[in-house]
């Protein structure tokens, strides 16, 4: 009897011990990465994953002493597919942290779901303004930028330094385009400029002829916000319509991005734009980043690559701060919000009180060097926040930039 009891007790003890989660031994840190791997933006998706992969390889695929597993899911650039993949990553793959996403409208669509699922997600690319302004999300950590962020200083630069008075804007008709133009218009008009015409082209437009013929020829310059394949088409068509000779071309952040520069020619030379990064940035850490990336992937890195590379670093810093215990989601989230990266390839990055990076904004000009096109940095605005020089409370009183805000008073 006693023997039976003790054997049973022993078996039970062993069973319980085996069933209990092992203390010191932990599985890998799982990162769920969302990007468009097929469809029109597939190459951007590759730039994004390449950036992250490069950081991981440089660091032995380890974060805070634990192995790292990255699960990449294809969003096809569509919000409803991104939503399903998000759920799969959290519920089926049980990832500890999410990152990625490309289009701003996907960013707006995912945020409520991320909050519902309660897993931290980093937005290195998706720039939707309101997610760190009027529609803050608890679980989204924005370590990239807001759409309007670089254009606040840019509007000022164009009005004061370039001296343009009347500008026509043409932009892609979705939230990113609205917010980019809005940021530009606000500061440009506050410093004496006037937006005299606002044109909007649908996402995916490749033939700009109907819009180009509408551009008012008596303006001083044209501000064009283009993304992906629109960026590829626009400069040449702008030149062919005879506009390049008459109206200098200013670009939104993605118009002359390193992603499209290799495919553009002389028609892009002279284009001035503002962004949080340039591959031509002359700092030791960026030069190293660009050389390594080029060796590995045979392409100059775009800002998509940089922000995803820095995301790897970001997750690492936060994981180290919680001693590798990323399973504790609340603590991990808090750590993610406290990360500061003083020496990212794009410069120093740290989050403001609303959860968006304070970082340098570079005014760049497309120039030809040794037969290649580069975004030469012609001016730097250090430590720019999403609110620029405005007081956050004041700024948040105005509505989010959209098609009709700021209104086109001089149209």
């Amino acid at each position, binding site marked *: 009897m006693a023997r039976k009891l003790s054997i049973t007790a022993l078996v039970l003890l062993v069973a319980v011990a085996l069933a209990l989660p092992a203390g010191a031994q932990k599985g890998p840190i799982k990162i769920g990465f969302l990007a468009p791997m097929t469809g029109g933006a597939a190459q951007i998706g590759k730039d994004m994953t390449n950036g992250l992969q490069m950081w991981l390889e440089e660091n032995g695929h380890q974060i805070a002493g634990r192995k790292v597993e990255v699960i990449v*899911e294809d969003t096809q650039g569509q919000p409803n597919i991104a*939503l399903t993949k998000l759920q799969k990553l959290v*519920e089926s793959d049980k990832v500890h942290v999410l990152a990625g996403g490309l289009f701003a409208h996907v960013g707006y669509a995912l945020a*409520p779901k991320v909050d519902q699922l309660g897993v931290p997600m980093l937005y290195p690319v998706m720039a939707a303004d309101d997610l760190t302004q009027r529609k803050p999300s608890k679980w989204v950590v924005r370590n990239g930028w807001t759409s309007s962020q670089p254009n606040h200083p840019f509007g000022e630069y164009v009005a004061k330094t370039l001296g343009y008075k009347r500008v026509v804007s043409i932009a892609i008709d979705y939230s990113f385009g609205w917010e980019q133009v809005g940021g530009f218009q606000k500061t440009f008009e506050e410093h004496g400029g006037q937006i005299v015409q606002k044109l909007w082209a*649908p996402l995916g437009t490749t033939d700009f002829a109907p819009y180009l013929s509408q551009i008012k020829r008596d303006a001083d310059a044209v501000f064009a916000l283009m993304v992906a394949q629109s960026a590829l088409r626009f400069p040449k068509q702008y030149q062919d319509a005879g506009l390049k000779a008459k109206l200098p071309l200013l670009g939104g952040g993605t118009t002359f991005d390193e992603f499209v520069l290799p495919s553009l020619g002389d028609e892009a030379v002279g284009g001035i734009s503002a962004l949080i990064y340039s591959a031509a940035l002359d700092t030791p850490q960026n030069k190293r980043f660009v050389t390594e990336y080029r060796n590995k992937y045979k392409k100059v890195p775009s800002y998509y690559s940089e922000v995803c590379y820095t995301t790897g670093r970001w997750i690492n810093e936060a994981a180290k701060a919680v001693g590798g215990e990323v399973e504790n989601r609340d603590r991990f989230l808090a750590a993610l919000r406290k990360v500061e990266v003083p020496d990212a390839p794009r410069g120093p990055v740290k989050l403001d009180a609303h959860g968006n990076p304070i970082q340098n904004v570079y005014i760049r000009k497309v120039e030809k060097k040794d037969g290649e096109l580069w975004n030469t940095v012609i001016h730097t605005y250090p430590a720019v926040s999403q609110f620029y020089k405005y007081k956050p409370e004041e700024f948040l009183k105005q509505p989010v930039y959209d098609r009709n805000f700021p209104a086109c008073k001089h149209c």
Partner: protein
Amino acid sequence: METFVRRAPRAAALVAAVVLLALPPFVSSFMLSLLTQALVWAMLAMSLDLLLGFTGLASLGHAAYLALGAYSVGILTTRHGANFWTALAVGVLLAALGAAIFGLVALRATGVYFLMITLALGMTVWGLANRWVSVTSGDNGISGVPRPRGLPFDVSGALPFYYLVLTAFVVAFVILWTVVRSPFGKTLVGIRESESRMRTLGYHVWLHKYVGFVIAGAGGGFAGVFWAYYNGFVSPADSELATSVEILLMVALGGRGTLFGPALGAFVIVLLKNVVSIYTHRWLLILGVVYIGTIVYAPEGIIGMARDWLKARGRAQLRPAPSP
């Protein structure tokens, strides 16, 4: 043996019912969301089946009704705080209205012309969804659609919401089943077989087709309402041509003219799209092969194949055993 052949479909339906009713509390939340999604598309596919399978009209614009239902919910819930019943009513009515208008144009044609006209009509809805930015928010889509409000029980959780959608599916199925079993439905089948014969027999062919068209549209809108609630998001992609073609595939793959078939086809396609892309990036290729394979190997769909198999088994059993 004949009883097995006759009982098999009923048995299969029973199994399906048990699975859909009892299993969900035990599956992963990922699988639960897939099942919910599949039910929505099953409703959509069944509504198209009324048109395609029972009336013989292949439409390339059915996604328009999905979109009309979905956008109604999107706009009413995010901008006017509408509750579930209001959003549902408006969604279904708007889709029915759309079908009523489109039907007047489309039903002047048959066959290939009908396909093309419904394509053009579907594209008008797509065009509006894409470019009428002040109403639909264009490419951004409408995000932040809350879970249904105003119901006696809280459906914000995934499981309660699933059961709501399941209820909707049952309602849709019962309605459509009643329609196809009714004299009206039998007339539609007669029209599918031969319009001229029905006309000579004195049936008002156009009116029957029109009513069927409107019911199918309303059904599409009904599915669209739940699609918006499920995603929490509405976008122009809901109305694009590829979506309309995909609904056709679900009907064809499952087996047109059976209601069960298209529902099954919807399940297969939803699971395929979501699960396959976990294992390979080449899911487009696989989907393409499914499209072609369906027509080449199973033109009567899965249900058709099952029926043939059952018939063959039935015949085999009736054959006398070889003499020793």
